[in-house]
């Protein structure tokens, strides 16, 4: 098991390195702009050149990259010139909000998708199955911002059950906090459940035809046990992978939802750094998000091994 983990970690490092390089390169596309932006309307050619020298922007690019990388490894991602906060501070503030959103969204997607998948697998080919599968396909064509608009219209504008925007920290008011997350999480969940449902359904249909399910029936086990223990576990491999990949993808998806529902998360931080041209924050946030994405895929690989012991022992 340890060998497996070590091998996977070894694959991880070069990717993270490459990610950091790419982030830096993007950020360095137009270094001149950064000095101009910071100085704003006080920019004169002399001041710009002086600031550029101060910030080390006139050094060769590979030198700057190494310098930046060393700083990053020491935990210094840079400092926003607007707010004075370090990148890490800003990210640490916003991360919990985005996490809560992502987790609730994925949870919602699983709560919708898993029961539907099981129900469809058991009734494969029936009108119910066709209806659900068709709706899943249709939902995939509804982007997050469309669902958001629809949900806001129905629940906030017409019915007035839930707030359209706003955020209350969990520590202040747990119930209020959750109320703020219902619509945003639901928006994302509506976009995620089709993929999860499809994957689990198709795996379960295949599993239900296996001999060991017939064996479980022949043993006279309760149907619920056969479905939830014998059939679900071997079918959940792809589901776990897809869930993991989704959570990573959701990091990008939260941008839209956080913006629409005014949630102070990483996505909104990214957006505001773009609006205000705070490029250091932008660079730092992109690096954090991309690294997080890579790490999550790594965790998914680990989970894989837990779910299917054959992979742990080097089989299958």
């Amino acid at each position, binding site marked *: 098991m340890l060998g497996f983990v070590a091998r996977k970690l070894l694959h991880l490092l070069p990717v993270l390195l490459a990610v950091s390089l790419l982030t830096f390169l993007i950020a360095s596309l137009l270094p001149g702009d950064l000095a101009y932006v910071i100085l704003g309307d006080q920019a004169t050619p002399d001041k710009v050149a002086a600031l550029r020298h101060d910030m080390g922007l006139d050094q060769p690019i590979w030198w700057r990259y190494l310098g930046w990388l060393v700083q990053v490894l020491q935990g210094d991602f840079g400092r926003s010139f607007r707010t004075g906060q370090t990148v890490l501070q800003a990210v640490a503030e916003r991360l919990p909000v985005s996490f809560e959103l992502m987790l609730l969204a994925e949870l919602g997607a699983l709560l919708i998708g898993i029961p539907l998948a099981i129900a469809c697998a058991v009734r494969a080919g029936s009108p119910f199955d066709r209806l659900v599968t068709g709706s899943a396909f249709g939902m995939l064509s509804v982007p997050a911002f469309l669902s958001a608009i629809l949900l806001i219209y129905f629940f906030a504008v017409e019915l007035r059950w839930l707030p359209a925007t706003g955020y209350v920290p969990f520590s202040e008011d747990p119930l209020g906090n959750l109320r703020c997350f219902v619509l945003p999480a639901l928006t994302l969940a509506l976009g995620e459940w089709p993929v999860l449902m499809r994957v689990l359904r198709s795996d379960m249909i295949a599993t239900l035809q296996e*001999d*060991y399910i*017939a*064996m479980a*029936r*022949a043993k006279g086990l*309760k149907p619920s046990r056969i479905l939830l223990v014998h059939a679900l576990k*071997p079918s959940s491999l792809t589901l776990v992978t897809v869930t993991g990949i989704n959570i990573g993808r959701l990091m990008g998806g939260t941008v839209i939802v956080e913006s629409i529902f005014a949630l102070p998360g990483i996505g909104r931080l990214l957006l505001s750094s773009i609006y205000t041209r705070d490029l250091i924050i932008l660079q730092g946030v992109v690096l954090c998000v991309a690294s997080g994405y890579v790490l999550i895929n790594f965790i998914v690989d680990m989970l894989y091994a837990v779910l299917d*012991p*054959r992979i742990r022992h080097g089989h299958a």
Partner: protein
Amino acid sequence: MSGPALLSIEDVVVELPTPRGNLRAVDHVDLSMAAGQALGIVGESGCGKTMLSRAILQLLPKKARLSGRVMFDGQDLVRLNPEALRKLRARGIAVVFQDPMTSLNPVLTIGTQLVETLQEHLGLDAVAARRRSAELLAAVGIPAPEQRLDQYPHQLSGGMRQRVVIAIALCCEPKLLIADEPTTALDVTIQAQILDLLAREQRRRHMAMILITHDLGVVAGRTDEVAVMYAGRVVERAPTRNLFKHMQMPYTAALLAAIPKLDAAPHTPLAAIPGRPPDPTRPLKGCSFAPRCRHVGEQCLREKPALTPADNQGHCYACFHPLEFAAGVSA
């Protein structure tokens, strides 16, 4: 037949609707067996023996249609409600499938797959169930049973896996065990061991057993009675010794002749049966074996022969030109 029938299959027909027509897998089969008796069902692939076993187990594919009665221990399994049927499993009827690679759940430990059956039907608590499971594994000849309980199926060899499957089948002391080609997927060297294990357990527990196979050699010495099936019908049935001594149906004789003999000269060609079984979606008017039979006659093509008794010892056959095969192959 000794004693009242434990299992009685009465005029069972199993049909599967297909785009090419109605597939009649089992064609009016009658069979019965008493408690503690071992019955062998022999036939080629596609003769319907597996479908018959599934009919008894009530595990037919969804689209299958079954008519007739399957009386087990006084109850008609076909008309039994699902919950009662479920409770009957493992304690009433247990099964060993052909391929141990696929009949064990790959992501659950051996222990789990044993314990859950014990807990479901015998209501044992976790500790007692685990102890009993280890005992069962030892009884079927698995070394180091305690360790095996926490292992996964892929960590065991094929023969071991099938022993586990047998242990699971026996764990609730079933009245009837159905073994469907239990050794076909195993190495030849292990086949005899597994078959002997089954026969031994059957005798020890006075358990009824149905041994399904395509190999006549397998049932010799391990069963009390043999039924030979062809194209969905039982074409010959007899106590085992009588079958081998006085087989009547040319098909049975051909089956026996097809078994390679150790004492034959090298390069003796295998006496395979020429031709193929009929297409089950296009049943023949006359005897189904007629196209391949060496003794075929006029009547064989027109009428289906019914099962007629050969003697008063329970030997029946379905043929218009039975053999008087007294070659005396020892059973």
